[in-house]
């Protein structure tokens, strides 16, 4: 088969499926997120990284331009697909977070799979939607300690879940041998 550098249908399909697996898991365990909300102490922000973990995992696996953005779009629209719940906000947020990850990956030229890159992408995605939240949720009018709590939790979650956990999952997946099938092939003779 002719090797193509751009995204092939298989790449896109694998990316979307990865995102949908996360969307599915999220819709099962998403109750936790909502259950943490009523306290208003932003404990739910600790799980915020789950929203964009798909982008980081998909990038680590496929390592091609555009993958993070597609994964994030798919994960966001995954809610519509899995739960039949259409939320424009989610999709707008997803696209922004995907773009933030994409920028980080572009900086390392889509090569590195180190933990630091994953963490950087997670933090970038966590920070990317703050301006929008600021307007939407009137965060400027929140008590300062509460705002800092939310901010801290979100960045921490971006680093730990979207960065650290994503990298751990990537290592685990590598162990299963399934990654030989997909993505940028380092050597042509890497067998199936």
């Amino acid at each position, binding site marked *: 088969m002719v090797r193509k550098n751009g995204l092939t249908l298989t790449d896109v399909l*694998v990316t979307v499926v990865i995102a949908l697996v996360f969307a599915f898991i999220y819709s099962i365990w998403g109750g936790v997120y909502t259950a943490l909300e009523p306290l208003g102490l932003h404990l739910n922000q600790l799980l915020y990284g789950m929203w964009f973990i798909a982008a980081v995992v998909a990038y680590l696996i496929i390592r091609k331009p555009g993958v993070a953005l597609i994964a994030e779009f798919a994960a966001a629209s995954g809610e519509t697909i899995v739960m039949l719940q259409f939320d424009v906000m989610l999709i707008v947020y997803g696209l922004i977070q995907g773009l933030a990850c994409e920028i980080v990956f572009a900086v390392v030229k889509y090569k590195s799979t180190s933990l630091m890159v994953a963490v950087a992408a997670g933090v970038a995605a966590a920070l990317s939607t703050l301006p929008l939240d600021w307007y939407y*949720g009137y965060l400027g009018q929140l008590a300062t300690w509460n705002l800092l709590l939310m901010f801290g939790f979100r960045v921490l979650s971006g680093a730990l879940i979207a960065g650290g956990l994503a990298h751990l999952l990537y290592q685990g997946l590598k162990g299963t041998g399934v990654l030989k099938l997909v993505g940028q092939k380092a050597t042509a003779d890497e067998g199936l």
Partner: protein
Amino acid sequence: MIEAIRHYSTPADRVNPITKILVAVGLFLAVVLIHDPNHLFHLSLLMLVLLIVLSGVKIRYLVLLTATILFFGLISSLYMIFYGEGTSTLLRFGIVHITEESTVRGVHIMMRGVVLSFFGALVVFTTKLTDVFYSMMQQGGLRPKFAYAFMAAIRMVPIIANEYMTLRRARKVRRPLIHRKYISGYKGFSTTIITLLSQSIRRAYRLGIAMESKGFDDGPRTYYHRTSFSIIDLLFIMLVILTVIFSYQLGQWYSPFATTDAR
């Protein structure tokens, strides 16, 4: 699945999916820019009316849906009600400090979510998921490989769900035999998700190769399912714009909130 709970079809069914999505994005921007709670109050009411009239869904499901949307909307705005800044105190309890201003602001944030959820529900009830991708290819100029990859992946969701259930049952049966850490905690999480991911990647890879060799790739193609723009799209856009304007007028006429700026 959706057809089962609908009892009539409406003109909204014939609106192009791209129009609906663009209108939804426009509505999102409009809602973020609205600071008058009275305006938003009437907008959420009118959106509910639109949902009831245009979705064609049986009323008892709509009641259930509305209750859920209101409940989750309230929960997600509690942080502002509890900890928002304000001067006229209503209640102080430990770190919780509820003021008049923060309550109005909290309700305002909740109504933003409610407006978008109502419109989102209308879109879901009147749109076929595959039509979204067909119209994105035919009118939106999306490359076919992206659209077909998405559609194929969507068909895999039930398989993923099935696999997850199998995995859970297998664990349930073996529960007395294996260590607890493989069921709960990080180990339990990672074994579940890595299993699901690796199986899905394998399946997606096989399907992807098959689809590529059958020509589901880029290039000129013809379609069996056709979507198009029509006069109904224009009417739909006008309807939503008029709703936003009309709700503003209503907000001037009847104001449930004393303030006109939630900030």
